[in-house]
């Protein structure tokens, strides 16, 4: 299976703020947060289309999320809203200053048809 090498940027979005206020256990929050935005050509390269499930994998873990096409992102860069799904794959080392690097993380993305996307309840259960 073809794996795309990419740089993962995590960040806040307005939709995240809106759905957060509806509630963290809401369907809206789940649907917006458990996504990755990618360049269309990058998507073709790993043979996925909008709405397909992909796996994003870093040195620290992997997570299944839905794929979203973005016209704004260059090839080789992927974007995920910062939250429960990115925490599963974010770096741990804080380089002496309290915070891991949540932007510019080396990642691989590949098609993961049929893979279940975890809910926040399931992520918590996985931790416990």
């Amino acid at each position: 299976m073809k794996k795309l090498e990419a740089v993962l940027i995590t960040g806040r979005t307005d939709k995240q703020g809106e759905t957060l206020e509806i509630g963290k256990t809401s369907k809206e929050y789940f649907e917006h947060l458990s996504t990755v935005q990618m360049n269309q050509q990058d998507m073709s390269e790993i043979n996925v289309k909008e709405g397909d499930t992909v796996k994003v994998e870093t040195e620290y873990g992997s997570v299944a999320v839905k794929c979203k096409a973005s016209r704004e992102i260059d090839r080789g860069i992927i974007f995920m809203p910062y939250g429960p799904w990115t925490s599963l794959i974010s770096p741990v080392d804080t380089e002496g200053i309290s915070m891991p690097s949540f932007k510019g993380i080396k990642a691989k993305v590949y098609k993961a048809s049929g893979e279940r996307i975890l809910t926040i309840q399931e992520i918590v259960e996985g931790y416990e």
Partner: protein
Amino acid sequence: MKMKQVFKDVVCSFCGCLCDNLEIEVENGEIRPLSKACTVSRSRFVNYNRDRVPYPMMKINGKHERVSLEESIKKAAEILRNADRPLIYGLSSTTCETQRKCVEIAEKTGGIIDQTATVCHAPTVVAFQETGEIHATLGEIKNRSDLVIFWGCNPLQAHLNHFVRYSVFPKGMYTEKGRKERYIVAVDVRETRTTKLADMFLKITPGKDFELLSVIRALVNGAKINAEEVAGVSMNKIKELVEKMKNCRYGVIFFGLGLTMSRGKHYNIIATLNLVRDLHKYTRFVVIPMRGHFNVKGAGMVLAWQTGYPYAVDFTRGYPRYNPGEYAAVNLLVNREVDAALIVASDPVATFPSPAAKYLTQIPTIVVDPKISMTSLTADVVIPCALAGIETEGTAYRMDGVPIRLKKLIEPKEGVLPDEEIMEKILKRI
């Protein structure tokens, strides 16, 4: 109360903009923004009663069971009293009054207190301590700025009214033509709504901010650079920006997590602050971090005036000590160096790297929050509280350090207290 009430000049308690010009209608327990609220703010007011923590809860045999407020407070105090080194964490989405009580709990229990800037603008805080900050209020920027640079931030998605109220569109005392009088620059690794509205967009290679900032600073200081491009940006464009910077009347750099969270972290911010300082050879220039949660600035303020340090403060020896890479929440959890936690108005299980989140779910944890969070799903004790800025008043600091009084619009549900009172009750029991 059936009566319809309209509140004017209401403060929104979502982001660091703390917009204080909203008009809000309250009727039959429903809240409707009438004007000026952004989509996030609107969602906050309209949905204020959704996904609330329904009642005080304790984990009994692995399941959350309803308990009385008294029982939950007794248990919370017991957990904190019995811990060798509790972590008190969060603070940024509540009032300064509550933050002050949290410091008192940390001191009394010999614990550690940290706030959400720790995974956000911590590098900014550290850089300010290193270099100093050339600062202004947003009001001054509205009235004077003619060059506005957004570096690694996207206000049109994260601080939605920033453009309208403070930085791009408003007409001020010396900026009578508003947008027409301002030149807007955006620096980002990707195209965003903000970069599309800018007059100049510098698309930079991820992780190369320090390089670009250093070259700009060198050019400002008259150095010659032999390169055709730096960090993915052409030298012509960089030189054009440098000329704009030197020749503006009043410049400002707003920066966000694109700088703090990328490679280099506090060195990126130090480079920015030094650049702003050097620009004073030519003109007036200021710099403001785009702070996220509505009172994260206040959390830094309260901690600094109470303990001398802005975050990651350890009281284990009975007096405050400060060492970000050691006493910060992520480090403590990853290294398993705390044995209980009090989480106030934040959700570390949702945002911390998984080993930190995992350890937090394994130690006795108390959550005080108005709404259900991921951390509350796993906490041993969950105590609901009133929503700051909707059900209770208090003080919050805007991103530029201006304190603003939050208003109370509606009574909380019977028995639900402001978190300040809950902290006071816990303190008395410890």
